[in-house]
């Protein structure tokens, strides 16, 4: 088994723990502001206001 000390674990979580959070945040921002997604989001937000109350078949 690997012998991981408390200090090693804390050092790892303090460095990479922060990086992956920031990395993930960047991915989400890119997804939200990606220009070609704009049309999809605009359609999504108005789609719930359509009036028919039946499943599409």
């Amino acid at each position: 088994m690997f012998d991981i000390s408390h200090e090693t674990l804390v050092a790892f979580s303090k460095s990479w723990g922060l990086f992956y959070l920031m990395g993930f945040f960047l991915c989400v921002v890119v997804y939200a502001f990606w220009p070609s997604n704009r049309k999809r989001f605009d359609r999504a937000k108005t789609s719930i206001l359509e009036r028919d109350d039946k499943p599409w078949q």
Partner: protein
Amino acid sequence: MNATDRMIGRLTSGERQAALILCGLTALSGAALGLAGRNDVVGWHGLLMLLFAGGFGFLLMTRLDMAEPTEDRGASYYDDPIKAGIVLAMAWAVFGMFMGVWVAAQLAWPDLHFDNGWSTFGRLRPTHTTGVIFGFGGNALIATSFHVVQRTSRARLAGQVSPWFVLLGYNLFCLLAVTGYLLGITQSKEYAEAEWYADLWLVVVWVTYFVLYLRTIARRREPHIYVANWYFMAFIVVVAILHIVNNLALPISWGHAKSYTIWPGVQDAMVQWWYGHNAVAFFLTAGFLGMLYYYLPVRAQRPIFSYRLSILSFWGITFFYMWAGSHHLHYTALPHWVQTLGMTFSVMLLVPSWASAGNALLTLNGAWHRVRDDATLRFMMAAAVFYGLSTFEGSFLAIRPVNALSHYTDWTVGHVHAGALGWVALITFGSLYTLVPTLWKRERMYSAALVEVHFWLSIAGTLIYVFAMWNSGIIQGLMWRTYTEDGALAYSFVDSLVAMYPYYIARAFGGLLFLIGAVVGCYNMWMTVRAVPQATSRTGDQPVAAAVPGE
């Protein structure tokens, strides 16, 4: 034909048999638990499971030979379980809020436990929290999630029996929990008091819920998954993880209610508050934000102000909340850096929380006349405001030096209720007043005036409650940290208790107003189904104005 006939009549005979087998299996498990635990108080819970499953089994058995359904199911949404869920949610609301008023009154007038063991504060208090959070909130979440996922996916629920299993199985869990507290069964973990057998049962129910939700999404005809579904899915997935990890425990025997958690000491405390705070995040916030992102735009007939912002706040909430739980353990044996981590993430949480609250209010910007005229929309607007206020307060209270003053005082209780009454309950009532006429295909609610009455009772009740607790909490905190010149405590604990007396009366009164509001809401919904004529077109009870782009 009564409602039970109609609902069971919509199942094919194969589905009725499958449902009957499920009832049989549940009843057998109950019988086994009852036999194994016949010398322990858990035997009563075996009997309860047997009677609960047996009762539904009887309903099915007497209707096995009913005619097969003739309708084309793919052409309509499956609304029966949603209707039942709304009824159950409102019934639990009245029960849970009544218990809340009772325990609040006990704090002012301790004689109200009437010298019984079962009605002491320690046993009644969790029946209030479980009744309102899991009974009222949980049933409302299941019902609205079934509604939203079908409408936004343009697909029918992926099952006929499984939605009923989820709804009724979940209510069996709530019953086991609440009756257990009265019998003295508890594992003493806040918001997770139910013992091991009820916890195992909830795992089965919850995994079924998750699979049903995923399968319905997989059937969708609408290519994009609307953001409300993401919130509901985060709610279902994370609650499953939290519930399983926090309730890892070993029963002392199969026939005994008592179990011991596998986590020792401070780890147990950390796991419990990782659970506890994320229960606030994913049970009491994520799912209700799902309601907000669907019912508020639908009621206002305006698309959400910014869809991009809703995506950013979704991922912000999902990632930040996970780390915030340790702020419940400031100044304890928990390592200092873990406390600091929890404090930091709690402060960061303000960003995605205010993003959602602001997104909701900006959606209404330009339609304030409708907020003025329509109490249902006003419920949702007020909910967004309370959401913004209580998340600000939460971030503030999580700062360690502030927590030194507020912890163990009524300030915490006031904060929780600003969130639970002002945000969770108000968004639920707003959603239900939108949903009830639509679902039962009625023109409108029975009485708009009664919705108005309910709104003002709720607002008055919440404000009285929260202001009373702010006052009493800060007084308590200050009294406990006041020293004399010789360095001794200036006030005894009893001194601080005496100072609380007027605030405890005010708190019970605020809660009573809120309870009366809920009862008015029940009557209004009941009369809507009973006495309001059917809508000619299904667009009844929706504002006639055309959709206006929000951004």
